């Protein structure tokens, strides 16, 4: 999940050079929309195991806010990063209020769809099948993004824009449209991530802010603007957290930032940063 949000952050930063704090809000919005959509679908008589497409649909549909937000951010593309942080942080706060307005302050959750696919027993461990579905979805989206960026025409344009915006523009690429699409894709990664995670947890208002911090750790470890970096960074953060909790719970947060610091000192650009970036 962290990967999806970090990937969205990477994509938007890589192409548009915008540090988008609001990526966490998209995640939270996706979660809430997922809860509402699945509740509605189950109420309309949908059998429980079919909830997954509904979740994905809710996440994707919500990406429709992408172009609107992108329009809002347009004036600050060429401004200092601090303006970008301020504006996108303002968005975070506004989305928090939007969520409070529509969904209230109590945690929202989906009843038993988490176990709709059953549980798997691996040795002495019981794992909900849904966890594996999410892992598969994450891997699938990672592969899909890789294919999209490397093989499709639009992917090539995106990469060209990330490398050199002026040159791409000179070659006749319509920057406005590329930006809108890329940003929307970034939003979609966040909202789908939020929607996918919701069966296993509950939607709470501050989930967005929590995630932003971790997503930034992922991005710093992996290297800004790199898809492979986002994937590796998310894996590292996830595994380090799990190991820390199992062995020495006190250092859970510390361990992640020790790695962040180590990466910043030894490889300031991140593990997977391109030489030119």
């Amino acid at each position, binding site marked *: 999940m962290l990967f999806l949000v970090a990937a969205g952050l990477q994509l938007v930063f890589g192409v548009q050079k915008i540090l988008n704090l609001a990526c966490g809000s998209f995640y939270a919005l996706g979660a809430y929309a997922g809860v509402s959509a699945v509740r509605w679908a189950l109420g309309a008589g949908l059998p429980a195991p079919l909830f997954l497409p509904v979740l994905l649909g809710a996440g994707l549909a919500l990406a429709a806010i992408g172009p609107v937000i992108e329009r809002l951010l347009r004036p600050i593309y060429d401004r200092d990063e601090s303006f970008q942080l301020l504006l996108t942080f303002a968005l975070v706060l506004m989305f928090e209020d939007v969520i409070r307005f529509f969904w209230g302050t109590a945690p929202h959750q989906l009843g038993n769809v988490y176990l709709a696919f059953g549980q798997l027993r691996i040795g002495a461990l*019981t794992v909900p099948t849904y966890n594996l579905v999410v892992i598969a979805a994450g891997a699938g989206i990672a592969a899909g993004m890789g294919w999209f960026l490397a093989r499709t025409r639009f992917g090539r344009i995106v990469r060209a824009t990330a490398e050199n915006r002026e040159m791409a523009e000179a070659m006749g690429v319509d920057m406005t449209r590329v930006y809108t699409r890329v940003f929307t894709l970034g939003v979609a990664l966040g909202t789908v991530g939020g929607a996918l995670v919701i069966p296993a947890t509950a939607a709470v208002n501050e989930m967005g802010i929590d995630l932003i911090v971790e997503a930034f750790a992922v991005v710093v470890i992996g290297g800004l603007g790199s898809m492979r970096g986002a994937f590796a960074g998310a894996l590292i953060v996830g595994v380090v957290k799990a190991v820390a*909790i199992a062995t020495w719970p006190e250092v859970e947060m510390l361990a992640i930032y020790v790695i962040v610091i180590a990466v910043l000192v030894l490889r300031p650009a991140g593990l997977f940063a391109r030489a030119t970036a």
Partner: protein
Amino acid sequence: MRLTRRRFLTLSGAGGLAAALPLDAAPAFGQSGPVRVGVLAAKAGVTAPVGESGLRGVQFATDRINAAGGILGRKVELIVEEESSPKDTVERFRKLALSDKVDVVSGAISTGVGLALGPAAEEMKTIWLAWDATTQKGVEETMPKPKYSFRSTDNECEAVMASIITARQWKGKFKTVAGINPDYSYGRDNWAAFLAIMKKYGMEIQVVSELWPKLGATDFTSHVATLVQAKPDLIFSCFWAGDTPIFLKQAHAAGLTKSTKLVLTTGGGVHESLKKDFTPEGAILGYNCFYFENPKASALAKEFTRWHSEKFKEWPNYESDHGYFTIVAYKAAVERAAKAAGGKWPAQDAIIQALEGVEAESLSGPRRYREDHIMEAAFFQGLTTHKNRHDFVTIDPVESMTTKQIQKPSGVGLYDWINGWKV
């Protein structure tokens, strides 16, 4: 650009001035006009649902008092401000005291905020009746003998009660225990109290895992995996917010709730989210000071529960009762002091004196403020059951203990007090 910005500043300055004028013009003090009650209610973050709940209790009390003619004939008027960071909340407290000239402030949940509000209340000479926000250690240091602050019950009451029930229910039936508690004073204090009481009862237990997730965390899969590995017979947790259902759901999915005993001291605060799908029967669950389906509920509590569920489509939780009590306690104190002053509106010092030892009927039965400004109330806990008309768990039978049993008395340290128990 520059012109528009300047214009904007002028306009907003004028607007601000206009907004400030009526405040200065209002004759808000003295013994005429409404009683002004400032309310500090959290509206964002983990504490938002709790703040909302407290505010509803205050509102219910105010509506009832006003419908019955107010306090000594004066209507009660609420001025609601937000509880957020300690610094900002103190600013709003000052604003309530100086600009709104409130008679009393009710509210605050977060301990961090409470620690900052205590000294502010003394400095502003404004009565502050806390909902929660007044934990043990820090408060004793920053406000040893407060004059203007009135505190809630102690942090550890729920852990003490749950521990006593644990000992009675399960003594000798478990050996290994694990704790998963939020990583701040409330979580730490409760876990320590639990272990101390287990020791006092002579239970030979072994702690196999102590987990401290951040307050407000939403993913416990790694914690659950650790607990599955540690195989505790009993898990103790004082989660009180959205963390409770998330943890239970993930624990249930990993098969952890099947054979493990669960002690959830405070989860009843989010009772509606503890769905039967993943919350097992037979776990100890605490509802703090108010249980919405108490079979022995008073007519008043029933009226409140009906009002709350019709108005908000939710069943009420404990914080409403904290809020409710602060208002009726203030009313009772004013009336008590007025009786001594020959029916006139009493001076502030007389009200404070009357608050000490004042008793009033709260939603969960009689409550009072101790002479040392600490609240006395009844707590409700019990074993979870699925046999009800809801899709979430409730408790049956409902057990109630008062702070006389589960709160350390005035002037004694918690652990000295526990060690002095006769068990």
